[in-house]
């Protein structure tokens, strides 16, 4: 049986110009904008001909970038907003976990809010009465249920909201990213509950940025791109294709960002002619660094790396006069400003002999051993005592992605060992 059927759904939103955030009565009467159809130029096309169906008992994941239409789709499925054209047919009672605790009133007790929220979600007073103990117990709020909701922590608030919504006992459950706000101990409990729903053959539509969870719990995944179904199929396949697409986009973005920043360095050089931008670049410029670029193992310029990929930093140097005392150094900072690694030619046991005229410097890293994130690079040349010739501080950006979700600053090489009586099954994908 088909639980949800979406047929060629289009959804247009009105685009507001900044100056006319709201209509005036006059303009509405003159232009008849209030009841008329939106013209092509004044609308934002959130969904453009989306069709799919979900078999009863299946779990469908919807992934996509921000603004791809995921949430709009879910709102239409929930019946909150109406499609501009096309149709949605649903079979069974729907509960949408789009915002938990919508309609909670801060001034009154959790108990009363359970009843209000329950009735808003379509339960009757009697049904709530029957499920009341379950709801409170699942939310772990036995001790606080008679306190006003305004005193609840956001975790408690979310727990109560989730507990009520899940106890509506729907045939079709719509979930939009709500698990993102839960406290660490409650999220597994929610996932358990979702799994229980799956076992009971309920239909679930799950919108999330958490691709690992999507892959784990969904039978099928749809990738929405700019309001259209880009791909649909087996979770692993769709998620991988999506990751590839996002990765490529990121590379382009970092490439552009790098080009821009490199240009700004050159601009400062040109415009200021020896003057310094004290925030980002300083030094006497007796030796000058330019043209800092990053490459992958094959020598291709790149700013998005995989964690175990080789990386190279290369730059041109120009010495105005011959120098005997010089040190090249680099440092890598993460996005929190923590120095992840730094080294220079002295620390690596090079003694400077001489430099004159133009030259090239290249630093090779066989494997990055960083966790995923955005990093900033310092590149410098200075004297042994620290007197700076040219210091580029945090001027270059690159990004590391990783399949693994380890945490910390750096990936320390490691291996697990277990005695005979401890057994694991190794997952294929890692």
């Amino acid at each position, binding site marked *: 049986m088909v639980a949800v059927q979406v047929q060629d759904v289009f959804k247009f*939103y*009105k685009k507001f110009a900044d100056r006319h955030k*709201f*209509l*005036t*009565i006059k303009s*509405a009467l003159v232009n008849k904008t*209030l*009841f008329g159809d939106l013209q092509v130029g004044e609308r934002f096309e959130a969904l453009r001909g989306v069709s799919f169906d979900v078999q009863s008992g299946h779990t469908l994941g919807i992934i996509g970038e921000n603004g791809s239409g995921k949430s709009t789709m879910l*709102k239409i499925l*929930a*019946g*909150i*907003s*109406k499609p501009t054209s096309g149709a949605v047919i649903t079979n069974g009672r*729907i509960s*949408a976990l*789009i*915002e938990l605790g*919508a*309609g909670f*009133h801060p*001034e*009154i007790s959790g108990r*009363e809010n359970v*009843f*209000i929220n329950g*009735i*808003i*979600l379509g339960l*009757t*007073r009697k049904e709530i009465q029957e499920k009341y103990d379950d709801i409170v117990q699942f939310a772990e709020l036995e001790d606080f249920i008679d306190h*006003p909701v305004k005193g609840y922590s956001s975790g408690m608030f979310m727990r109560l909201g989730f507990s009520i919504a899940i106890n509506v006992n729907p045939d079709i459950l719509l979930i939009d990213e709500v698990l993102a706000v839960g406290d660490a101990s409650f999220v597994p409990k929610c996932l358990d509950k979702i799994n229980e729903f799956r076992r009971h053959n309920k239909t679930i539509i799950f919108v999330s940025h958490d691709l690992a969870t999507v892959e784990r719990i969904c039978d099928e995944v749809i990738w929405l791109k700019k309001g259209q179904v880009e791909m649909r199929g087996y979770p692993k396949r769709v998620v991988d294709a999506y990751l590839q697409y996002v990765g490529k986009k990121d590379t382009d973005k970092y490439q552009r960002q790098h080009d821009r920043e490199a240009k700004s360095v050159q601009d400062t050089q040109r415009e200021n002619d020896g003057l310094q931008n004290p925030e980002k670049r300083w030094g006497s410029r007796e030796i000058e660094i330019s043209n800092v670029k990053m490459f992958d193992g094959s020598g291709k310029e790149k700013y998005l790396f995989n964690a175990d990929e080789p990386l190279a930093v290369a730059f041109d140097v120009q010495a105005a006069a011959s120098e005997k005392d010089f040190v090249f150094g680099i440092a890598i900072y993460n996005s929190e400003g923590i120095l992840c690694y730094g080294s220079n030619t002295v620390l690596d046991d090079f003694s400077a002999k001489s430099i004159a005229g133009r030259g090239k410097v290249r630093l090779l890293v066989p494997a990055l051993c960083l966790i995923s994130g955005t990093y900033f690079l310092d590149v410098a040349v200075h004297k042994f005592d620290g007197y700076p010739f040219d210091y580029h501080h945090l001027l270059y950006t690159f990004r590391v992605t990783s399949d693994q979700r380890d945490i910390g600053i750096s990936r320390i090489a490691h291996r697990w060992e277990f005695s005979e009586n401890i057994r694991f099954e190794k997952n294929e994908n890692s």
Partner: protein
Amino acid sequence: MIEKLREILRHRQLIMILVSRELKARYRGTMLGFFWSLFNPLLLMIVYTVVFGFIVSGGRVAGFPSTKLYALFLFNGILPWTWFAASLMESSNVLMVHGALIKKIKFPIEVLPIMVVATNMVHFILALPVLIFFFLIFGKPLTLWVLFLPISLLVQFIFTMGLCFLISALTVHFRDIKDILANLLTLWFFSTPIIYPYETVPKVLKTVLNFNPMTHLVESYHFAFYYGSLPHWKRLSVTVLVGLLFFYLGYVIFDKLRDTFVEEV
């Protein structure tokens, strides 16, 4: 339309719980909770009694045997007016205040303006014992015509409801209505026989007043309490028709704009 009304009736449990939530939230945490909803009409009554009962007229208001009775007359009209005006003001932002309900869950939106009018009606009903108490201590006996009260209540509910549907729907699109409304209500207040009796109004102005449905509604409360006589049933029946017309138009426009609320609030 009948179908829509049935639909609204299906939500009565929701309406009831929302109204009681509003009442509880307002009365919670303040010891004088109930008193606060009475505070505004009482203050108005006192101010007008002082201004017109003592300052302007020097102790005697035309058409009233005593200042005490003028105060009673005032309170008699101010209470239903407060219900009316507060409902209109609150409905001008009720959809925005409860935007989360509209945007995040499937929610019967028409319940919100109904909640506003019903909540204010409960305030009004709760204030009635105070009005009756004043009648008793000021030595003006009540008559059986008080029993006409439910009719006035019903007519006022229908008329107010229509306006509130209209206002709540339109303010979503035109935020300036709220400011216009506050001024309009001041004008409307003085165009309704609340601080002066209908009978003392010059003939020309009476014609103007007759076009104001609130004139006949407030008068019907005056008849039930202050005058203690049969309401002017002809004028009241016309008001019923006008009320129904407003209700119908208000709801139709609300219903027509309903789908736009999700995106605009």
